[in-house]
């Protein structure tokens, strides 16, 4: 472009740039090359539902972002090696001890690297938040039926993300080679060893030989910082792509149908809110990391296979497995010339295997029972699907009890009761709690359904004053802007018979569903 075509007069220059100024010009250039205008406009207008429960997935996404950022920081200083060195660092109680480079470098990150302790604790807290928000997000999706057609695929992607997050959390806290994490690796080794037919071969190949070996930490490191995060990243991309492609679900409500999405547009409202939310999640993580100590490995000390400490509990998301191992009876079976360590294999391999496989298959299982093959974009209220809600509550009760069972020793110590009592109590509770949770939840759902207009606004009155000064309150029909759309049940699909509510002779209405 020659100089002559650039107007010197500012107003003329602005006119030459077109209606939308420099940015508009830049967008034009971009569109010439990439053709972004049409799709970009649609994307800017994309509607996001405003309901708070849609925020749970965002917590997961943003804690993953924090994990990536803090994790990159940590890789600069962490040495993934089991080579033994003598510690001479700034933490004097450990001075002169034989430690591995993994342990030494983690202590150095905590005490020597500026901001290192903050980054380490943020990383660990963000992980706990990540897995936690995934679980709660998944519960939301389950209880509201958001996994139904067409979203079964995204349910499986999400469940895979949860499993990978748990696995990577375990790999991550195993890296510092401290007394607690080393014990965790020892237990994992024994779990792999317990698998019939191939256990000992698998264990030797996964861990590079007999326990403890020197291959574990370098292998866990590359899995933890590269391979698993890469898969998670790819699946997050797939999860979001499917979400955009299929659009959000939404709760029934004013103007909301199976054929539309109601809420706020991507730009600028959602962008502002969600970026703000990223900052809030980051801020809360940083505050937790500042004021709530997590995994002080320098207090645990270097892992040695012959040493151990009291109260060995894993991170919370592994708790249900540890609890299952604690309370499962000692059913080792020997027969056919072989040992079947069922006391390990059932609680630690078979049980989670069944749990996650049923979760994967849940959309299909539910369809099998309901015969519902329709497209669903409107969400269920949990009370309107009492059986599903009761099954979910039952599974959560089971997992909660197993989680509590991972602290039998601490509970026994705290309440001054014998360990045997606690273990037996937990064995009973693990069986009984789900059995109670199911009918209880089911009943509560029915009761909530039965409350007509429960939680709804009162009928509005129009208050008028007559010429004489008299006030008159006239009940009026609700103006339609106040209709309680959010509180009315979704119309039942056509293939389900609506139950008749015939009054009995007594005149008492009984609800049978």
């Amino acid at each position, binding site marked *: 472009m020659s100089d002559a075509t650039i107007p010197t007069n500012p107003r003329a220059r602005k006119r030459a740039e077109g209606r939308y100024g420099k940015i508009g010009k830049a967008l034009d250039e971009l569109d010439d090359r990439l053709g972004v205008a049409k799709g970009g406009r649609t994307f800017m207008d994309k509607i996001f539902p405003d309901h708070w429960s849609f925020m749970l997935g965002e917590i997961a996404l943003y804690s993953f972002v924090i994990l990536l950022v803090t994790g990159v920081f940590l890789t600069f200083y962490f040495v993934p090696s089991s080579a033994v060195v003598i510690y001479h660092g700034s933490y004097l109680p450990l001075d002169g001890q034989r430690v591995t480079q993994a342990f030494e470098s983690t202590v150095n990150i905590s005490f020597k690297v500026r901001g290192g302790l903050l980054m380490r604790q943020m990383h660990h807290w963000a992980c706990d938040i990540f897995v936690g928000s995934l679980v709660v997000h998944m519960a939301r999706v389950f209880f509201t039926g958001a996994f139904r057609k067409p979203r079964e695929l995204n349910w499986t992607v999400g469940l895979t993300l949860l499993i990978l997050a748990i696995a990577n959390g375990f790999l991550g806290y195993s890296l510092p080679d401290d007394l607690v994490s080393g014990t965790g690796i020892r237990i994992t080794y024994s779990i792999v060893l317990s698998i019939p037919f191939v256990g000992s071969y698998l264990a030797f190949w996964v861990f590079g030989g007999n326990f403890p070996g020197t291959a574990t930490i370098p292998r866990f490191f590359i899995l933890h910082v590269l391979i698993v995060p890469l898969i998670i990243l790819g699946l997050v991309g797939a999860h979001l792509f499917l979400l955009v492609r299929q659009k959000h679900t939404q709760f029934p409500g004013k103007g909301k149908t199976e054929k539309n999405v109601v809420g706020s547009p991507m730009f600028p409202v959602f962008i502002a809110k969600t970026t*703000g939310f990223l*900052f809030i999640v980051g801020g809360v993580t940083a505050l937790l990391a500042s004021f709530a100590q997590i995994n002080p490995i320098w207090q645990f000390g270097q892992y040695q296979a012959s040493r151990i400490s009291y109260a060995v509990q894993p991170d919370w998301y592994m708790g249900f497995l540890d609890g299952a191992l*604690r309370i499962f009876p000692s059913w080792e079976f020997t027969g056919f010339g072989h040992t079947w360590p069922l006391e390990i294999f059932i609680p630690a391999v078979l049980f989670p295997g069944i749990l996650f496989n049923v979760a994967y298959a849940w959309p299909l299982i539910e369809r099998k029972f309901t015969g519902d093959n329709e497209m669903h974009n409107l969400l269920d209220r949990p009370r309107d699907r009492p059986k599903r809600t009761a099954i979910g509550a039952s599974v959560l009760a089971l997992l909660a009890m197993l989680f509590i069972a991972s602290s039998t020793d601490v509970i026994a110590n705290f309440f001054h009761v014998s360990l045997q009592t606690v273990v037996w109590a937990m064995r009973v509770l693990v069986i009984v709690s789900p059995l109670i949770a199911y009918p209880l939840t089911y009943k509560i759902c029915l009761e909530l359904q039965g409350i007509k207009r429960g939680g709804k606004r009162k009928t509005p009155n129009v208050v008028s004053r007559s010429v004489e000064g008299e006030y008159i309150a006239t009940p009026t029909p609700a103006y339609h802007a106040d209709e309680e759309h959010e509180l009315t049940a979704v119309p039942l699909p056509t293939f389900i018979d609506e139950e008749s509510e015939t009054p009995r002779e007594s005149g008492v209405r009984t609800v049978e569903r």
Partner: protein
Amino acid sequence: MSDATPEFDDHRTPVAITGLSADDPHLQPAAKNPQTVEGVIATTFVLGLLLMAGFGAAYVVNAKPYILGATMGFGLFFFGVGLVAWGKYLMPRGPFVEERHDLAGSSDERDAFAAAIVERGGGVVKRRKLLAGLLGGGLGVFSLVALFPLLRSLGPLPKGTLFYTDWRKGTYAVDSTGRRVSVGDLAIGSIVTVFPEGTENTDRGQAVDQTVLVRISNENFVTQKGRETWGPKGYLAYSKLCTHLGCPIGLYEQQLQLLVCPCHQSMFNVTNGAIPQFGPAPRPLPQLPLYIDSSGYIRAQDDYDQPVGPGFWERRTA
């Protein structure tokens, strides 16, 4: 939907975001008094900015970690709250609506897609069954062969390593510092972790050979039939690996004479051959036969008579 009271209706009925006039109620902020809200948000931004500057200063002077975290955390938090409030109260309040379009194509499109794959592709494969079979078979074989270096190179074969420890006839028992343990070292009721001499600092010694030595009397102690000579002068030695998941049995309950695993609380009675008394452990801890030599040192008569630690497939039933 009644249209009796349209004035209540204006901003509560979802509308499409395109083609709205600038004064459309949907484009107005949700806040009743935007000026005040703007002031509040500006305050959070200023606070956030100050805290972030504080974070920078704290980093430069190498302040305590919690000061770093508090300035950064509160800084991010205030920015976040301000930004969310901006989006929620000062930006177009909506609600807006977007139509969904059917994901599924028309039946013609579907047929064309299926035809492209089934007819065109299927035709090719059917006409060249040999090639297709060779390609499929070749890829299958290659996948299997590729598994070999992927899996097999990862580690050695277990072979006998799970069956034996480094205890041999005459091996001295040493403590974690490498000092030989002799008969006068332990008082009744006390325990010490011992290793075969020379392995106390090796991975295998630590993880496989670790043995707990407990003294429960002054006389020879017989835990089970057939173990008459195994507990000289009240010294009993058991594998320290829990038979449940291989944690070291680190706790000794002196009064009850129980070894307790801190991981999953299996309890083993030392007086009857470490038979599990409670908990998930399925088998007794293997007992190491001991003798006391003429110099008073504690030595092993032999290796354990069975594999130590958790169960595994090849472990024989004996």
